[in-house]
């Protein structure tokens, strides 16, 4: 039998991309630490540390209490947005699925708002247990509920209707928005302040507390997601065929839904709604290294983190000393890419 010469193996490209993207993330992380409104120099501070001088109070606050938590939160949120986008696209068998577009973020947002406004009504005992985790927990529940609902509505006999998914997503988003509106209406002044800060969709309010609250959840969710590669590859063939390939379909689906909900919930809880990372990142990676989910999920985490940090740097320097909400930057950069995907492959959304 003749040996078939392969044109080129995308698996190798995809694995090499791990290294390139990790390098990119490192460079951007340093840049992000070095750039800011205050003019504090990262290099100056490092020199001081190296020569044994103590840092000034200013340098400590800016680098340690402002830029570093912001960097870490940015990495976690960017990675979680991109990975939950990729997982959701695999689950729904469609490159246009994205938590932000189909109402999952809105559901998570509703959960967060509910927690902020009605959290005070909880018995003290419960508050003592959940504490600072209340908002992300509620966001997770909101995201989980809306993902489940969406999947139930749009999937019949293992096939997901794209049209139903997008339209149900719009309805779900509208409903979550309306309920959120009622809660905002009920909120008192202090809660409104919290809501406004939360809703800015920005990394500006990053603190170590937020890092502590969101990042462990995100890290766990991404780790679980990274193990779903094979399962999602199988699901690309349809649920029945995936099962015949030996994949425990129901388990993969449940894990995927929980992962999306946890990652989206945690990201939304600390950063509000940041759109388009979840669509653009997996799509670019699929173009570059193919749709195999095993390397794709890891690459998506790396590239998502990098892109969000770039957007964050842009949002910080474009109108210094003020800041543009990062959601605006990602939308301006991401929406045209989304339209380009649509126009390039019209067949995808045969409504």
């Amino acid at each position: 039998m003749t040996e078939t010469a392969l044109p080129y193996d995308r698996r190798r490209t995809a694995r090499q991309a791990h290294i390139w993207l990790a390098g990119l993330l490192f460079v951007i992380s340093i840049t992000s630490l070095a750039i800011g409104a205050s003019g504090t120099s990262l290099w100056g501070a490092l020199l001081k540390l190296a020569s044994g001088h103590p840092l000034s109070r200013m340098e400590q606050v800016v680098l340690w209490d402002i830029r570093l938590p912001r960097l870490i939160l940015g990495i976690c949120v960017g990675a979680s947005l991109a990975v939950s986008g990729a997982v959701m696209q695999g689950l729904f068998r469609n490159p246009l699925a994205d938590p932000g577009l189909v109402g999952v973020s809105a559901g998570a947002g509703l959960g967060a708002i509910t927690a902020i406004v009605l959290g005070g009504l909880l018995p003290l005992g419960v508050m003592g247990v959940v504490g600072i985790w209340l908002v992300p927990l509620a966001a997770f529940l909101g995201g989980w509920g809306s993902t489940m609902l969406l999947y139930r509505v749009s999937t019949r006999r293992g096939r997901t209707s794209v049209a139903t998914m997008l339209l149900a997503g719009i309805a779900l988003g509208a409903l979550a928005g309306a309920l959120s509106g009622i809660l905002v209406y009920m909120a008192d002044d202090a809660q409104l302040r919290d809501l406004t800060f939360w809703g800015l969709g920005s990394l500006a309010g990053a603190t170590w507390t937020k890092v502590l609250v969101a990042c462990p959840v995100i890290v766990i969710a991404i780790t679980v997601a990274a193990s779903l590669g094979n399962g999602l590859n199988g699901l690309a063939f349809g649920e029945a065929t995936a099962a015949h390939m030996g994949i425990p379909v129901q388990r993969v689906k449940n894990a995927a839904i929980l992962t999306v909900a946890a990652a989206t919930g945690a990201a939304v809880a600390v950063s509000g709604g940041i759109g388009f990372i979840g669509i653009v990142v997996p799509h670019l990676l699929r173009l570059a290294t193919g749709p195999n989910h095993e390397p794709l999920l890891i690459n998506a985490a790396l590239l998502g983190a990098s892109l969000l940090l770039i957007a964050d740097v842009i949002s910080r320097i474009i109108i210094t000393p003020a800041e543009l909400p990062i959601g605006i930057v990602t939308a301006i950069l991401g929406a045209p890419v989304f339209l380009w995907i649509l126009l390039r492959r019209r067949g995808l959304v045969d409504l």
Partner: protein
Amino acid sequence: MLEAQNIHARIGKKEILHGIDFTAKAGQITAIVGPNGSGKSTLLKAITDEVDFTGTVRLNDQDTAGMKPWELAALRGVLPQATTLAFPFTVIEVVRMGLMSGLSGGREDIPARALAAVGLEGYSGRFYQELSGGEQQRTQLARVMCQVWQPVIDDAPRWLLLDEPVASLDIGHQLLVMHLMKGYAARGGGVVAVMHDLNLSAMFAEHIAMIVNGDILASGPPDAVINDSVLSLAYGCDLKVNTPPVSGQNYVLPHLVDDALYLKPERTKIPFAIFSEGE
């Protein structure tokens, strides 16, 4: 041995299969034939647990209901009628999925050999979504073959369950794929195929089951099924079975006499059981 006993299956509210008993032996090709909508695909889907059904399915003496997906995948490959992919995988990437589970894992030489076996050498880097229907079907067959590449492992046969494997193929590739199935069976594996083409079934299958209106009308070696009376009854038109002098194999052609090609009204009330062996 593949045994399906007392299979009742329904799709929606309609009962499609009314208590079918079906058996296939390893080492031969078993063809499931029948008119459109008779339930032949549904029978295969019940065997592979894709539709709700009652009854038992045993594969190599094991009840499939109690088996895990990866245990089943190691024992049988299933080819659906058509497969659409959600993402732009290349041909070789699709075929390699066959290595994902089952007992062929790690044998990186198999995908290229499977592609060659279905006549798709040189297609590795092509995008699956850009292939023709027949090429897509052969790509999927290569993937399924990858999954159960060795027909027998530890004295236990492995199975190819194929839903219309040659329906979208040209005549040359039909023969290629039928020969592939024949070879798999000859080396001890089991092959069950839902077939439309009666002549190919008669030519290659050792055992044929004719399904009509959700029951088995006739089953047995080709002679017992591919004959004038069974076919005319099953398909509701006059069909004549002949044997060419070269091979002596049964073949059937519709013949145009008066209105013989129109479906007969009595097709709906066929007296079952009269042709089934052992009933």
